[in-house]
């Protein structure tokens, strides 16, 4: 498992460890063990389970979040709740002498405080999520599923696009609104790979993916199709509009000077773009099938065009 964050949380881990150790040490030094026949195992099991689960949650928070304010709030809230549960749990095994009875009195106090802090933390998490979603616009449509992302480009994969096209087809049919799908193919990507290594090819794919997302509207969705192909979904758009966009993308790609590794030379890429309008009477499978056919036809046409110019 990749755990780049856990090292950065060293101080939080120390705090967690010291707090839990203090609580356990304090309770055991103040109280005495109960005789075993007085133990209520059923209760102990439930409370112990709750303690362990909150500890697991703390673990996941530390594993999956970078350092920062929201993480600190989440951590403190969960830690306070965990202290309450731990006190409750130890309570099952220990009786306190009368002069230490205050411990039982305050044992439930950290939990509500922790819950209030958790609520604040969740509110801030919500705000943070809104910011991240804004950054993800054009690459995500309402639905989120990290299993469908493409590892190389960071865009969503063809599977996600298929789902979105399915939704779009239903919507289009109901509201009688056409939508357009665009397919983009990098020219001579094989040659690039052979010349500069596949690692660089992967980098190029990522950069081109970014250029495409820069040139589309907020409601559009760009995904990686497969190999050197990308696919973009334009809801409520006709071919005319898509053609304007394809001109924009072509233009901006022509000005992207891709550098291979630390090489100074600029590498300009050319792409083949085609787009097609749909009215919602096809299946999602047909849409992609038709797009591929269109792409092949466009390629053949382009090649002929080039041959003519050479002749």
């Amino acid at each position, binding site marked *: 498992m990749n755990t780049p964050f856990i090292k950065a949380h060293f101080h939080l881990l120390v705090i967690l460890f010291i707090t839990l150790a203090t609580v356990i040490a304090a309770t055991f030094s103040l109280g005495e063990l109960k005789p075993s026949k007085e133990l209520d195992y059923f209760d102990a099991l439930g409370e112990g389970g709750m303690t362990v689960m909150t500890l697991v949650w703390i673990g996941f928070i530390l594993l999956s979040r970078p350092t920062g304010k929201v993480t600190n709030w989440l951590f403190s809230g969960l830690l306070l709740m965990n202290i309450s549960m731990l006190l409750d749990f130890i309570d099952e095994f220990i009786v306190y002498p009368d002069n230490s009875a205050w411990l039982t009195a305050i044992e439930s106090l950290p939990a509500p405080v922790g819950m209030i802090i958790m609520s604040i933390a969740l509110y801030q998490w919500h705000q943070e999520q809104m910011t991240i979603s804004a950054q993800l616009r054009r690459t995500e449509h309402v639905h989120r599923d990290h299993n469908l992302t493409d590892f190389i480009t960071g865009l969503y994969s*063809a599977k996600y696009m298929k789902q979105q096209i399915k939704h779009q087809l239903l919507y289009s049919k109901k509201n009688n609104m056409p939508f357009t799908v665009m397919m983009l193919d990098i020219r001579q990507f094989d040659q690039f790979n052979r010349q500069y290594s*596949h690692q660089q090819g992967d980098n190029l794919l990522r950069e081109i993916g970014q250029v495409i997302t820069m040139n589309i509207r907020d409601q559009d969705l760009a995904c990686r199709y*497969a*190999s050197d192909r990308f696919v973009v979904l334009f809801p409520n758009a006709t071919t005319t509009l898509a053609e304007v966009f394809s001109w924009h993308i072509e233009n901006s790609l022509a000005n992207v000077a891709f550098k291979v590794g630390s090489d100074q030379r600029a590498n300009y890429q050319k792409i083949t773009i085609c787009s097609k309008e749909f009215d919602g009477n096809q299946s999602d499978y047909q849409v992609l099938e038709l797009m591929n056919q269109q792409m092949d036809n466009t*390629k053949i046409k382009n090649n002929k065009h080039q041959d003519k110019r050479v002749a």
Partner: protein
Amino acid sequence: MKGYERYDEVLDAQQLLLSLIDLATKRGAHPDKLLKGTKLFSSDMSKKNLAKNGLTCSANTLLTVIENCTKLVKGNEISFLLGRRYFPSQLGLLGQALMNCRHLGDMLRLCQCFQLDCFPLMSLQLKHFNKNSYLIFQSAVGKLSKNQQVFITEFMLSALLGAIKYRCGVLPQLTIHLDYPEVQHIEQYHTHLHMKANIAVHFDQQICMLTIPSEQMYLPFNDSAISLKTVALEQVRQSETRPYATSFIQQLNSYLSQGLLEKGDLSQDNCAQHFGYSSATLKRKLANHQLNYQGVIDAIRSQQAVFQLIVCQHSNEKIADDLYFTDVSNFRKAFKRWTGMTPNSMRAQHCFN
């Protein structure tokens, strides 16, 4: 000559295993998780250890890693990438020899002769009919899981198509029959295999094969140098210290199909004797590959029948006669048992395609 088996440590790991692990790692999989179940660790693959031991692996190790890979890496892209990068750079000296072959048929023959160095997991069988050549794919290392079968077929196809495109310049019109149902990741077939554009792909068939026009198969390349090929092959042979070139299952298959054609004695004892084993050893070896003797014979006969039916378009009577069935109704019953459909319904389905 002895053939390699599923558990023999004879595969050059550098060629397939390492590049597979490399590709999967770059797509977010942990190398040790990829190697789970192989008794190997990623530290065994380090440069130092490789220089010391010269890593070889068994077909089973490779199959396990393939299975892990299909589960761990999202996107189903790896098999195609592995295939596209395979020829000629991954094949070393053999790649050089392949580059200097006279025509596609010549290249194919080399692939068959050096199965272990080229495509160790699947064997290629070449058949001709009318003006077409048919390349039939078959597992060379026994029973495969569905994931492994799809992965290896995709790898072989993209490697072969890559080589054809590289040597011929353009991809001719080809047809592919696949013996598994249509996959979810059809987009990879569109882009990597040029499905629709040049290649017609039929899923859910009873045979796995690639159809090439014979004319294309024997169209000479202009830039091949026979002398270079001879030198490269000589070097391959010299560096070859292993006594294996083809797989045991492959040898068994060709022995049995020859026997079926000539209507020879195909009892298990006779077959074991031919390979120099006792009947029990043969049985054990087959069990290692998760196969049984009658199953192997049935698979060969089924393949011959399907080929005659959909390619040669022979009548039931002719096929039954060629396969030495006593009558047509016996053939029809056997066919139904092998493929799950009657000869006539398969014929109808194929015409529809």
